[in-house]
């Protein structure tokens, strides 16, 4: 195989490439940032080796296919792809394989074949980890803490004696001030003695505790209330679904908080460093005869040279902060001006890992730290100056096409910044909640959307400050004596091919020419003043909606086609035949019920409507039917949205089947008959020419509407995926979700937020003319 891809380095058996030639190397976490870089570098710079990726099994793809999609397709491989041209696929086929394995399962959950493959491995590079500083405790424990032990167990089980190169983090040293040496955690005096097994048990208990607590009476009620607050008077299944999501989020947040608290109580900045440190401790205890080397990088950032300058995968740690600065989103960030931010380009880490793997397996566990802080420190002030300078020359642009000015940096304490952000978030949250409670539509509804965006921005900023603040304020200085020693022991060729000495990093060059341009180009931000000419998306959507076809088009009535509601219709009809005094009496009688009705509307649309319909008990069928026609012809039409009425007819003209679903009375919407193929409305039962005040069946609200249209579509052979639904309220969510093309009309605040998140088409329809201000029938006598 090596003969196929000759390389000058491979010919020297004493070189790194030469020593690893013909060896099989397993890599965990290959779909991650570091893992991808390792796989690429092994394939490119160690032409004689074979790489086995251990990836989580997925239902859709076999492991190799997953690796091809998620690793090989990454632009990390562009260089290799260009170098090999047509030979690339062949090389991948020959040298890259994959087995299914999961670090959160015992012995990685390997099958016999997996074990056989692992048995032939020279080394295992374990880079799988949950690197988020906000991981839930249970996940971090399973992956970061127990992961390395499980890899060791699997190696032992396979009968091999492969060298385990465990990627850890320099921050296992915790919030230490001063020098942190390349020592095993068990040998370091400042590393707290913690019983990792007890921590594992506690972590698992926290999960079950949180699950239990989330199911307690008050908690469940709270989740239900929150779901209700978000969705309004939506249907029960919808509220249940949302409520369950709220509960799951709560449990997760609980685990995140617990993890953070536990980590900080033991002196680590976050759950990542804490579980990594305990993972080292566990591995040292459990490794048996397996040779182990720890590689501890600091903050890994984009590549300095390899595979190409600026290569980075995913939006990582410092990127959101750096982009946030450019966007003007972060006006200050806590940090010590003279402090050192320990950043290391990914290619240096990869080179170190490979160099370590090429060494003879150590008898005693060894540690190599890959960090820049002691050898080529980047001071926080220097970083801020370089970033600010770069943004001044290469500004980002805001939505109006104006360049964002990066402010002068103050170096506030973390507490102060957090306090300011907390206040802003509180103000925004309160305003948003108030808006959600008010019955506003249209512009105000959209305002709440903007507020939500601002709140999310502020919350994100607070998140950065909370999580990354510990790193910018860190005063640990990571010694890299072992690493430098290893580097210096290498030949010139090896040093050139696997350069992991940070001494040659020029921070100005790295930030200005490599890192910032790379993350800005990946950050989906405006880098040009001109606004993109936006294709009129709304017009396109409208055209698509009206494309001829076998479609069902469902309309809601109130606030979708007319700006009116059941109570207004009631008031109009009830006052039609009354004199001034009787009108006043009626209002006096109904007014005290308004608060109750208001609450009822929030709780259950169906019950709300029933209340009004009950008041029609004893009304003459003939009279009310006649009045209802008049109600429609004068009042409702004057409050109608002509664009909506036109839209129905356009759908009809396109050959679509139109359907009206409303809780309004059938006698009221009867005049709409020419516009619809079918109408589902509420029907009052009659006895002796009088209405009884009871409905013949439950009003079609909430999920009943979804069932109804599903049923209807099935009966008429219509494709729901192609169908359109127009509605205005979150109680119509089931109906909107049931069709392929939901359209939201003049949405109330809550639905506006949902529509924005889901990218649904929003129509803003207007009334014409001078509709009456009050829902009171005009007196007929001149």
């Amino acid at each position, binding site marked *: 195989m090596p003969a196929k891809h000759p390389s000058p380095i491979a010919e020297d058996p004493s070189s790194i490439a030469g020593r690893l030639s013909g060896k099989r190397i397993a890599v965990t976490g290959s779909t991650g940032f570091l893992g991808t870089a390792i796989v690429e570098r092994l394939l490119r710079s160690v032409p004689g080796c074979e790489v086995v990726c251990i990836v989580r099994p997925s239902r859709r793809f076999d492991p190799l296919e997953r690796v091809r999609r998620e690793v090989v397709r990454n632009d990390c491989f562009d260089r290799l792809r260009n170098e090999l041209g047509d030979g690339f696929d062949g090389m991948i086929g020959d040298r890259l394989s994959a087995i299914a394995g999961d670090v959160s399962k015992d012995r990685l959950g390997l099958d016999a074949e997996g074990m056989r493959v692992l048995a032939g491995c020279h080394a295992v590079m374990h880079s799988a980890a949950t690197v988020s500083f906000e991981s839930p405790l249970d996940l971090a424990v399973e992956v970061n803490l127990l992961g390395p032990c499980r890899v060791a167990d699997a190696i032992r089980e396979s009968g091999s004696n492969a060298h385990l190169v465990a990627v850890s983090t320099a921050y296992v040293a915790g919030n230490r001030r001063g020098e942190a040496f390349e020592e095993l955690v068990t040998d370091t005096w400042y590393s707290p003695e913690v019983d990792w097994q007890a921590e594992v048990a506690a972590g698992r208990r926290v999960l079950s505790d949180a699950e239990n607590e989330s199911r307690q009476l008050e908690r469940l009620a709270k989740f239900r209330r929150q779901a209700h607050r978000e969705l309004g008077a939506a249907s029960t299944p919808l509220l249940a679904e949302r409520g369950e999501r709220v509960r799951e989020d709560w449990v997760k947040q609980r685990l995140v908080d617990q993890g953070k608290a536990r980590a900080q109580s033991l002196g680590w900045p976050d759950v990542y460093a804490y579980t990594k440190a305990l993972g080292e401790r566990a591995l040292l205890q459990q490794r048996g005869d397996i040779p182990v080397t720890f590689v501890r990088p600091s903050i890994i950032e984009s590549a300095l040279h390899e595979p190409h300058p600026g290569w980075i995968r995913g939006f990582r740690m410092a990127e959101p902060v750096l982009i946030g600065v450019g966007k003007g989103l972060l006006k200050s960030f806590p940090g010590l001006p003279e402090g050192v931010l320990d950043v290391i380009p990914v290619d240096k880490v990869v080179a170190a890992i490979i160099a370590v793997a090429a060494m003879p397996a150590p008898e005693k566990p060894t540690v190599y730290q890959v960090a820049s802080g002691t050898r080529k420190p980047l001071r926080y002030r220097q970083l801020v100056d370089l970033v600010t300078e770069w943004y001044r020359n290469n500004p980002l642009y805001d939505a109006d096409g104006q360049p964002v000015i990066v402010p002068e940096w103050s170096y506030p304490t973390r507490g102060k910044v957090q306090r300011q952000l907390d206040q802003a978030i509180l103000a925004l949250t309160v305003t948003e909640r108030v808006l959600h409670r008010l019955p506003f539509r249209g512009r105000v509804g959209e305002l709440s959307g903007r507020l939500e965006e601002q709140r999310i921005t502020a919350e994100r900023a607070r998140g950065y400050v909370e999580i990354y603040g510990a790193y910018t304020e860190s005063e640990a200085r990571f010694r890299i004596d072992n690493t430098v020693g290893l580097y210096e022991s290498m030949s010139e060729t090896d040093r050139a091919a696997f350069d992991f000495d940070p001494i040659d990093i020029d921070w100005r060059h790295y930030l200005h020419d490599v890192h910032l341009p790379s993350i800005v180009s990946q950050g989906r931000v405006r880098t040009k003043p001109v606004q993109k000419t936006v294709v009129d998306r709304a017009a396109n959507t409208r055209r698509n909606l009206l494309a001829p076809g076998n479609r069902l088009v469902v309309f809601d009535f109130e606030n979708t086609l007319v700006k009116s509601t059941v109570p207004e219709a009631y008031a109009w009809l009830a006052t039609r035949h009354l004199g001034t005094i009787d009108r006043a009496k009626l209002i006096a009688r109904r007014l005290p019920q308004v608060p109750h009705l208001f609450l009822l509307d929030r709780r259950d649309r169906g019950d709300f409507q029933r209340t009004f319909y009950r008041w029609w008990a004893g009304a003459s069928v003939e009279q009310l039917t006649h009045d209802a026609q008049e109600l429609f*012809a004068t009042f409702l039409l004057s409050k109608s949205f002509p664009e909506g009425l036109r839209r129905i007819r356009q759908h009809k003209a396109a050959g679509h089947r139109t359907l009206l679903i409303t809780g309004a009375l059938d006698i009221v919407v009867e005049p709409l008959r020419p516009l619809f193929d079918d109408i589902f409305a509420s029907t009052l039962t009659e006895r002796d020419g009088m209405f009884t005040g009871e409905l013949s069946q439950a009003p079609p609200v909430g999920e009943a509407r979804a069932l109804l249209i599903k049923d209807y579509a099935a009966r008429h052979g219509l494709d729901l995926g192609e169908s359109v639904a127009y509605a205005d309220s979150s109680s119509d969510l089931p109906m909107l979700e049931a069709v392929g093309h939901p359209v939201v009309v003049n949405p109330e605040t809550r639905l506006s937020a949902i529509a924005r998140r889901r990218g649904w088409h929003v129509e803003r329809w207007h009334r014409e003319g001078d509709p009456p201000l009050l829902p009171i029938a005009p007196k007929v006598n001149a």
Partner: protein
Amino acid sequence: MSRPGFVLDVDRSTPPILFWRDEQLTTERLPVGSRVVYPPEPAMHIENPDAAIKDALASPILGEPLRARLRAGMRLTVAFDDTAYPLLRTKGSDTRRRIIEAVLDMAADCGVDDVELVVARGLRRRMTERELRQAIGERAYDSFAPKGLIKQHDAENGDELVQIATTDNGDAIEINKRVAASDLVVYAGMSLKPSDTGWHRIVTGLCGRVTLGDGSREHVSRLCDAAAEQLKIFQVDTTIDTSIVPPSLSFLSRREREWNPLDKGRFAIARELTNIAPARFNRQLLNNLTVRYCMTNVVAGDVDAVGKTVAARLHDERTTTISGQTDIVTFGVPSFAPFGPGSIANPVLMVAAGLQFLFNLNEGTPVVRQGGVAILHHPARAEFNSVHHPSYIEFFHEVLTETTDIAEMDDFEQRFASDNWFKQLYQTSYAFHGLHPFQMWREITKALRYLGGVIVVGGNTQTVRRLGFKPASTFQDALEMARDITQIREPSLTHLHAPPIFTADVS
């Protein structure tokens, strides 16, 4: 004898001249040498209208008195004009009500039991209960309406139409079934201008939609000839005086130079208030204004003879003679335009009021020369009444965005004509027919073809452009533009000081 109409030649000392501007008022200083045509002052009105009506019924112009035509067991129909007029609400008794009450009393006397009332609404909207009560009186309404004996003519309902003849072209002439089947039809109406008189209004008000065709004057005259042979109609036509606004605002129809300090103060207040207040508020105010219109003539008898007499009297009462045409005609368009009572003068109606109604207030010769320019003062807001004018909304948003040429509107016209929604709104709600905007536009087109250009002062630019006109932000700009269009350095200008409605006799 009231003062006749008057033509004012504008000189340096002429004060700014009044322009109505939808529901607002404004004044403009006209160039020296322009002329302002004022209507004659209100004619002497009849002191006792009820007695005059009785007299007219007893001594018609041609034929037997009404009483002689009534007999027990006969089928009598009283048809009357709907609300199409550009007027404010009537205070006190409507002339239609006086006539109808007199006729009904007489019919009751003569033992006529089979009586029905028919609103001759053509393609216009149904009248509301409130309007009907106002038009025919509470007494007539309460005794006829509950029995379903007040019908609003429905040009779309084949069951209520019957063919009475064919035109020379062989087209069927369908007319209201009840009217056709009646032994006698009394038609109670009111004429504001000579062209209102005669068969035209009766036929357009009572024929079927298909019969009406494109609604053009030529087509309708053919229908009139056929109808005159078939229908037995006893017409009672009336005229009212030209006091179109309440007495407190009557100075508005007088010459500006004659305004006294109180008038000027009132005008300033009215102008400022209407400018500050929202359009909705102004409209509400105007729609609630009531005016006591005084009857100046009542003539009964054979339709043609009545028509000729009324036209002659209108000419006497409402004509101002001017000599020669000018290059420019200007007028302000008030909100109480035709087809918009109790509603909103939408952009299309605004144009109709200007270029169909006001433009045609003449004895055959327009005050502006061919190729001249019409300058309209109007805010031209794209506002519509969704109950009354749903087809206008779509006409404005769908048709006018494609074309302003009536010749290219055939497809649209057919679609609107066969639109079930418009049809239903026309039949059961209070909407003008889907074809109504097309008829308006056809009428407007005549003026457009005659004119070299139309400029709207102070109108919403987008709306004005969509209508196919030129927007001008000030009156002076409009004059400049008119100079460009006419290619004359000092074009002559006539301003029609209307309302009130009057006829210009250009000699």
